[in-house]
């Protein structure tokens, strides 16, 4: 008889007692399929334990710095009401003195808020599923319509958040676009044009069929892609201002790959 799944797991992990280990050893001598299973699982466990760390994208720090800058300023403003002005201003100046990042703080709030909005709407059961979950004693068509309207309302809300965030980021990118060389500027424009085309197509599909789940998903994904591209653009501006050529080159390389 083959060992149980949990016994195999314990054997691979080396946590069985001596007697149980000997039992499985004996079984493996006469069972090639279990022997292969154990060998493969040991290999998987070994490779899993040696996986390398993954470096977050450069834009992650830029986003975080913006959000923390805003939070530090909010805290300072709150402290200013109860502490001597010199104490409150010290912290505020420390974060602002980091360069040109303070002016991006408002965009950070929109980015965080929009990210949350996206997670919520993407995890909302689609109308067809919401129908299944609704009490069967009530009119099914009414609850289906209500669920569909709710999803449409959330979509509109998420769309508003995205458009505000995108507008803010576009203004920043547009004001700073003279820092780019013509090739990088062309790559950015090309990538933006592809995404804008996808947004237009998704909108057209939604106009034709407002409750289409694929069209809704496609529109949100396109917005998300545009946000990510604009975030990369802002990160690139920051890296170039800091004189971090390696960081800037990494972002440009990522932009080219996405555009290919």
């Amino acid at each position, binding site marked *: 008889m083959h060992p149980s*799944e*949990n016994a*195999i*797991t*314990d054997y*691979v*992990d080396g*946590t069985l007692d001596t007697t149980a280990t000997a039992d499985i050893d004996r079984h493996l001598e006469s069972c090639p399929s279990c022997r292969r*299973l154990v060998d*493969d*699982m040991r*290999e*998987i*466990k070994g*490779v*899993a*334990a*040696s*996986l*390398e*760390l*993954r*470096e*977050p*994208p450069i834009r*992650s*720090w830029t*986003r*975080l*710095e913006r*959000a*923390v*800058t805003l*939070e*530090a300023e909010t805290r*300072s403003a709150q402290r200013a009401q109860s502490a001597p002005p010199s104490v409150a201003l*010290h*912290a*505020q*100046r*420390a*974060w602002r*003195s*980091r360069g040109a990042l303070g002016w991006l703080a408002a965009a950070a709030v929109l980015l*965080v808020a929009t*990210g949350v909005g996206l*997670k919520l709407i993407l*995890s909302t*059961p689609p109308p067809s*599923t919401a129908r*299944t*979950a609704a009490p069967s004693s009530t009119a099914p068509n009414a609850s289906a319509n209500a669920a569909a309207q709710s999803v449409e309302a959330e979509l509109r809300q998420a769309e508003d958040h995205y458009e505000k965030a995108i507008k803010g980021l576009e203004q920043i990118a547009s004001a700073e676009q003279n820092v780019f060389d013509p090739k990088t500027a062309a790559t950015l424009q090309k990538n933006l044009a592809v995404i804008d085309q996808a947004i237009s197509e998704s909108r057209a599909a939604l106009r034709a069929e407002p409750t289409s789940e694929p069209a809704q998903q496609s529109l949100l994904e396109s917005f*998300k892609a545009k946000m990510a591209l604009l975030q990369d653009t802002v990160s690139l501006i920051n890296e170039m201002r800091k004189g971090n050529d390696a960081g800037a080159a990494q972002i440009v390389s990522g932009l080219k790959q996405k555009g290919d």
Partner: protein
Amino acid sequence: MTAEVADADIVARTQAGDADAFETIYRRHAARIYTLACRMAGSADDGEDLLQEIFLQVYRKLGSFKGDAALGTWVYRLALNHCLDYVRSRRAKMNKLTETLDAETSFEPQAPRDTPIARLDLERAIERLPDGCREAFVLHDVEGFDHKEVGQLLDIAEGTSKSQVFKARAKLRGWLKK
């Protein structure tokens, strides 16, 4: 300067508004936290969002860091709890949907199946694991928790942790070896 003093110093400087000190905390720990978040969430996009949320929490909660453990351990625990909240919340939502979690997923490794498993292939395959067995596998085989700890973290029985890890290893084997 001892590690404890260095941690206490960097925390105090961050709380006093020193932006460079907070950047140092981020640079030291971001890769470990991002990696954990990507693997627990099963996607780099979600991992990036989680990284943001976690370091905002770090910034907000630095005042509660007492120096009982190393700062890296404190950040890791906070990150782990945040990731667990995320997967629990997602599981609760997914449970309301019709059962699609165990739907078969296709996967093609880069390396031939009769050669040793490539790390990159395993990394990609982990993202394809179904919720539940992915978290148990990541916590046990990647992060090194034992099954009792995994059970406590995921609020499941120790035996369930073992069977979820078996299920994950079997799926990975099917994708990468068979």
